Structures are given as C-alpha cells and as structure tokens.
C-alpha cells in the first residue's frame, strides 16, 4: 500500500457516493431519479404486471451500475459506498418498494459483500411474502476454467445480462422464463480482465494493487484486487490474442455461432487502445467461423482511474440476439432504438 496525492475532483470523501448519485440523476432527470438514499429508480415506472429487475453494488464503477436503469433494462439499482456492497437492510427496502405479483429478479455480481447483502435481504423478503429470485453472475475466468461458479467473480458481464433480462421483462415474460433466459446467457459468457497501472481508492487515498510501469496483470479483479500472473507489457495484438484464446477455451465458439464481443474499459485506457484490441480479438475469434453479431467498445463498468480493460465473450442464442438488439432500451448509458 502507498498513499499518493489524490488527483481527483471530489469534495468531502465521505460524501462521494451521495453527491455522485445526486449529480447523475440531475443530468439524466428525464430518465432516472433517487427514491431514498442510494436507490436509483426509473422516472417512468414499469407497469406493475411486469417483473421488476433490480441490481446492487458498490459505487466507484460509474457508469455501472446505475447507468443502466431505464426502460428496457433495470428498474432499480441499490448502491453501496465506493467499492462496497449496499447494506442488506437498504436492499430489502427496495425489494419492499418493488413487491408485485409478477415478482422481482435480483441480479447479483458474485462478490462476497454483494452476495451476503443479497442473501440476507432475500431472507427478510421471503418472510414478508415478496416473490424474489436471484441471478448471480460469475463470468470471470481468471480463477481457472474448472473453478466452480461460486468461486468466480462477476465482472462487466452483468451489463449485457441487464439488457437481456430487462427486455424479456418488458416483453411481459414470467419470472421463471426470465430466469431461464438469463441463466442460459450466464452459462455462455466469459470475461477476462487485464490491468496496467493501479487506482486510488477515492475515500482513503490507498493505492490498490500497484503495478510498476511497463507491467501488466491478466486476471485482475474489479476493485484492483489481483488475479492471474503479472508480466511485462506485451503488444496490443499479443494481449488480445492471449486473452481471447483463453476466453474461447471456455466458450468454445464454432463456425456459424453468433457471438457477443465487448471491450469494457476500466478507466485510463483509451478508446484508441480498445479499438486496436478489438480488432485483433475479433480477427482471432472470427477465424473459427463464428461471427460477431453484437459488439461494444467503451467504459461500462470502471474501476476508478485504473488502466486496463475486460474482454467479454458470449455465445448468443437466437432469443438473446433479439433481446439485445431488437428491443428498445433507454437508459442513460445504454440506448437501443429497437425494431
């Protein structure tokens, strides 16, 4: 650990989460608003007869997770402090607000704080007769391909999942149907992160998992927690090839498969670099005869000013393609015009 001068535009560190959420809902006031502390909801609520989609997670990853609250995606995100799961009690209150016959789907990223909060909130909710089911995302393959689901982290793969389950809910599908569609996607997606340069925790100035200049680490977690091995920086093409090859080992794309390929920037890495990475990753992937039908390059789930990115690779079924590309979505950080 080193504490460096914190080069951030903030005010009182303890107020970061409250202030950033306030600013966010001011900027996107047509779409989102706060409903109680740390709880972002849609301005135009989804009708009561449809399944509500809720997620939870720490702040400091903007635009995730609240950037995806809006028509066709999330109904509500419950936000913790920077890099910290929200308390179970707060999450429980959101479940109470969204209680409905059709039920609630809670999307949880597999991080122990989030999982513990979600579990406790669901215990409380069950006692109150609330119909809620969880999907836990765990697409990080850095722990090894054979590692059980419960031991793999959830990285940015939650974001296309929000789109898929959000669109399915908007279509009027039942909680069970949505769960099935979502879990199927969950099994067909893999993510791998690479980091280069660390970030500073904005509340205490601590530098997390410092990397020396010219060093990189494949398998990095979403809060700067280390993972796979450190190595000297290699070229963009070699990095992309190495990472996508590992992802392909997990997803096994075949000729004719329809694929999703996203590059999620975590902070300082430029879109220039991510475009260059995408180029090689896509070439390697499409050499199998599979084709990329859904792609994005951008900062979706960030880790402060860390340098690095995550590659997301998924095999899409026909319904996934439809839900991703043909259904309207209108969240501040995800708009799909739809057909």
């Amino acid at each position, binding site marked *: *650990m080193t504490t460096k001068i914190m080069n951030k535009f903030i005010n009182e560190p303890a107020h970061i989460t409250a202030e950033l959420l306030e600013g966010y809902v001011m900027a996107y006031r047509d779409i989102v608003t706060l409903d109680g502390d740390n709880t972002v909801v849609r301005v135009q609520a989804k009708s009561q007869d449809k399944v509500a989609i809720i997620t939870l997670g*720490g702040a400091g990853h903007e635009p995730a997770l609240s950037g995806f609250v809006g028509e066709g995606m999330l109904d509500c995100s419950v936000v*913790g*402090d*920077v*890099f*910290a*799961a*929200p*308390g*179970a*009690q*707060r999450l429980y209150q959101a479940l109470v607000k969204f209680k409905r016959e059709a039920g609630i789907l809670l999307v949880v990223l597999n*991080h*122990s*704080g989030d999982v*513990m*909060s979600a*579990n*406790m909130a669901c*215990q409380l909710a069950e006692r109150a007769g609330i119909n809620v089911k969880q999907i836990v995302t765990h697409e990080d393959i*850095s*722990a090894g391909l054979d590692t059980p689901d419960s*031991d793999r*982290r959830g990285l940015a793969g939650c974001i296309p999942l929000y789109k898929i389950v959000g669109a399915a809910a908007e279509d009027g599908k039942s909680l069970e149907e949505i769960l099935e569609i979502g879990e199927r996607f969950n099994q067909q997606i893999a993510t791998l992160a690479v980091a280069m340069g660390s970030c500073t*925790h904005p*509340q*205490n100035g*601590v*530098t*997390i*998992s410092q990397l020396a200049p010219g060093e990189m680490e494949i*398998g990095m*977690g979403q*809060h*700067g*927690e*280390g*993972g796979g091995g450190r190595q000297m920086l290699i070229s963009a093409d070699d990095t992309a090839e190495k990472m996508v090859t590992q992802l392909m080992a997990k997803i096994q794309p075949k000729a004719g498969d329809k694929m999703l390929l996203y590059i999620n920037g975590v902070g300082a890495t430029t879109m220039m670099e991510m475009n260059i990475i995408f180029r090689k990753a896509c070439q390697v992937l499409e050499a199998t005869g599979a084709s990329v039908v859904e792609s994005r390059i951008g900062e979706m789930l960030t880790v402060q000013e860390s340098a690095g990115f995550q590659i997301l690779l998924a095999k899409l079924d026909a319904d996934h393609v439809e839900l991703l590309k043909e259904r309207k979505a209108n969240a501040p950080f995800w708009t799909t015009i739809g057909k």
Partner: protein
Amino acid sequence: MEKLTIDDFKKMISLALEHVSARSDEFSALDAVIGDGDHGTAIVQALKAVREATDRGVEFKTMLEDVGFNVMMQTSGSTSTLLGGFFLGMSDAVAGTELTSTEVLTMFRGALEGVRKQTKASKGDKTMMDALIPAVEAMEACGSTDIKKIMRVGADAALQGSLDTIQMKANFGRARNYAEKSIGFADSGAASWACMFGSFATALESGNSCD
C-alpha cells in the same frame, strides 16, 4: 463481575469504536494487500452505526436488533452484513436489561450463529471468522463466571486467531483471488474483529467511562 448491564455494553461498544478508529488505516492497508483497501473505513463506519443505535438502547433484545438493522441500513460492504448478522444473532439469543455470565455466553454464541447465516467461511479461511470462532469457543471453554474474565479470554483468543491468519491462504471474499499470494499478511477483518474483542474486555476491566 456477575452481571452485564446495558451501560456496560455501551461502554464496550464505545471503546471498540475508539480503538478501531485509531487503527483504521492499518486495517485499510491490510485490505489493500489482498482486497480493495477499504476495510478500515468500513469497520469504523459500521461501528459508528452500532454505537448510534446502542446509545438509544434500553433493553438488550430490542437494542441489539436495532443495532443490527442500523448497521445494514447505514453502511456498506461485507462488514455491513457480517456485523449486522453478529448483532441480530445476539438479539435472537438474549433479552432484558442485565445479563448473567451464562447469558453473556449465550449472547456471543448467538452472535456467531448470526454471522454463520451470512457466510460459509470457517476457521482457516483467512477471514474475520478466524478471530470470532476461537473467541466464542474460548469464552465457552474457560469455565469462569466472571464476565470480565470471560471477555478477556475471548479477546486473547481472538487476537491469537487473528495472528494465525498471517500464515493462511485466503479462501473467501475478495482475497480469494490472490490464493498463495495472500500468505504473509493478517486478514483485515480478523485484525479488526480482534481489536473489537480486545476493546470489549478492556472496557469492562477499566471500569471508567471511555468516551
């Protein structure tokens, strides 16, 4: 010391907040090695919420429930749920305005059960459980009826347990991903919970108000 009053309990919490705050940076630093560097901030915030709810308490069961919910309402992160479970578990186990030594043991056993509802981590996984489990076990095993004595035995065991985590490989929480590399540093949660147990004991021993 044969009875634990609400006032005694308030002193325990106050001193825990004071001592943990003083060592906050150390806990964040430990968390930065194999986690995300915020445990010091998190545990201080959580203990503030604990103290706030304790302050308005008049009866053990309701006070402890209020504490549990307040922690989970006002704070964030793993610590929020773990500490929430700890106090809700206590609340499930006891009631009244004074506790006998047996009831104190029941309360801490309840606290452990409350945390166990939240996590499958057990001894050796390099988490706060490595402080909590030995503490509760030692308290039950010590055979004394002096609450002061019981608390000190628990505190010593928690401290030893926290030191034991230095040699452990992490299996739970964010630290898990570090695997072998997690060896060599204490777990931040084990360290802070040991500090909390130490403060509980000291608060009873010192007798004078600690605020």
